């Protein structure tokens, strides 16, 4: 018989984790939806943002919540630059370039981090790091709750941006039909760089948020990247609303598996979910909102 409080605790833990997964996945799937590129370096950029937050805190005493907008702006700009200089060339190149260029970036970024900062595990300790709330017998850690709330706000802001602004509309139009968007006078290359910048900006926020309660190492982005792959497929590749809900689902599934099965096989559950989705519903749970027609 499962203790209800353990179940509730696992549910809460999973939900809080899932919020971060959502934010990481939303960026990944936005990039995919707009330009048909799987960004294997997504987790590596998240790791860089964790280090940015760490160094700003250690060297200049900048509070992680203050470095959050800094991380977003820095990575948004970096994303636009990377898109202009490297990704755009790959998009104009053959299939191999489109499939492998971000994998190359992942290698360069992760190993440059290892080269520069070593594999040493670093953590940030802020005033609320050890603060915990209690809801009955359920404990909720403050940094995780803050991260969850901020992640959900960021995802909702993205939704507002994509649905309510002209630029957002142009991004969605490009995702739906590249050629028609071009004919309607949309500057496709500009939209690509905005989308890549936004994707990195969002994952930078995720990196900034987890930096207060997660181990910071050069490979710290990998588990998030793996989760984001599963979430993106679950929600439908390219569907950012699906990714938002998919992130919460995968967070809960992982937490449940870690609590009631074995912690060691948490990630094996991903593979099971991935597989079931591919076999039964490859277009994702919600179907597609970004239907490519050209």
């Amino acid at each position, binding site marked *: 018989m499962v203790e209800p409080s353990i179940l509730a605790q696992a549910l809460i833990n999973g939900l809080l984790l899932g919020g971060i997964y959502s934010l990481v996945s939303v960026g990944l799937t936005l990039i995919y939806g707009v330009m048909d590129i799987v960004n*294997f370096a997504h987790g590596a950029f998240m790791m860089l943002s964790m280090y940015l937050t760490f160094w700003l805190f250690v060297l200049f005493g900048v509070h992680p919540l203050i470095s959050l907008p800094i991380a977003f702006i820095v990575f948004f700009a970096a994303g636009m630059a990377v898109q202009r200089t490297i990704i755009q060339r790959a998009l104009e190149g053959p299939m*191999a370039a489109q499939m492998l*260029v971000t994998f*190359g970036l*992942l*290698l360069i970024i992760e190993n440059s981090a290892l*080269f520069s900062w070593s594999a040493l595990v670093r953590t940030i300790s802020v005033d609320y790091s050890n603060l915990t709330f209690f809801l009955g017998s359920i404990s909720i850690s403050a940094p995780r709750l803050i991260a969850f709330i901020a992640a959900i706000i960021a995802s909702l802001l993205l939704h507002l941006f994509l649905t309510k602004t002209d630029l957002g509309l142009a991004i969605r139009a490009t995702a739906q039909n590249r050629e028609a968007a071009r004919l309607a006078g949309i500057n496709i290359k500009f939209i690509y760089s905005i989308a890549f910048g936004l994707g990195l900006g969002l994952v930078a926020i995720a990196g900034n948020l987890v930096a207060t309660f997660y181990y910071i190492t050069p490979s710290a982005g990998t588990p998030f990247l793996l989760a984001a792959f599963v979430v993106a497929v679950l929600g439908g590749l390219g569907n950012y609303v699906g990714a938002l809900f998919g992130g919460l689902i995968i967070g809960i599934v992982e937490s449940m598996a870690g609590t009631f099965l074995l912690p060691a096989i948490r990630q094996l559950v991903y593979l099971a979910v991935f*597989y079931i989705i*591919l076999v039964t519903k*490859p277009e994702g749970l919600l179907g597609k909102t970004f239907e490519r027609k050209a």
Partner: protein
Amino acid sequence: MSGMTNFRIFSNIILLAVALILPLLPLDPFMLNAIIFTFLYAHASLAWNIVAGFAGQFSLGHMAFFGIGAYTSSLLFIWYGVTPWIGMLAGAGLAALISFFIGLPSLRLKGHYFVLITIAFGEILRLTFLNWDLVGGSIGIWYPVMPDSLYYFQFHDDRRPYYYIMLGMLLVNLAIAYAIKRSRIGYFLAAIRDDEIAAQTSGLNIAKYKLIAFMISAALTAPVGTFYAQYVLFVYPDDVMSIPLMVYIMLPAIVGGLGTVSGPLIGALILVPTAEYVRAYMGGVAGMQLIMYGVILVLVVLIMPRGLVGSLRRTKLGMSIGKYISLV
């Protein structure tokens, strides 16, 4: 035309003779080791090339098949005393079976789904093995040292048998890759790679042929893992099923020429000795080698996506070299 072909046969015989005589020269252990690893990665890269280059389906999970080969033969020997040669075949069979189940749902869909599930499979297998004590977990498998014999697949006093075994495996793999490329399946795969929709509308069962390529590729990758386990006598998830290993597997084919038979070997001949020297002289610097490989990967796919062989074949120089050495 037949005159040129005779030249090619002649040059191939010369190359083979050189390869056979090489270990009889007084090589130092470092050199012998570098050549064995060159052949090892050439083999793995050639196997990967069958699905990635011939069929255009970019598996980023081939390190898992390498690992399955290494673990299957090692565990069969340690648990049941089965000779690694049988273990090698068992590993290849298991890799083919697993690739069937991974490829079946994902190869029906767009290429991205296949890439995602293969890399996710590879990383999740690594993490699972790291936490799974039954198969050595985070301690790994320390292979028991046995007397030198072909049955035990261990050679300590004289390491040259390893060289000849790896060379033999590579030659078999080259023959298989060449046969596939020249067969009906090879032409079907090229058609699928170049224009999937056109191949489909002309009535080709594209999912079936992609799946065949993936299974052959996986089955040919696993034996390299078995060889590695016998050669190094230590099996550890971060060595035999990691992302860096995936890079070592794919880079020779990308540099040499995706979709070619000779490309992975030529790529390995350039990359692996260079990497071994870098490791020997700058070994202490963490990440250096992989930064270098990452830069090479990005530059090659952006600037020279056909690789050395693919680009050379189209030039005048390449055509005249092609008379003597087959640039398939």
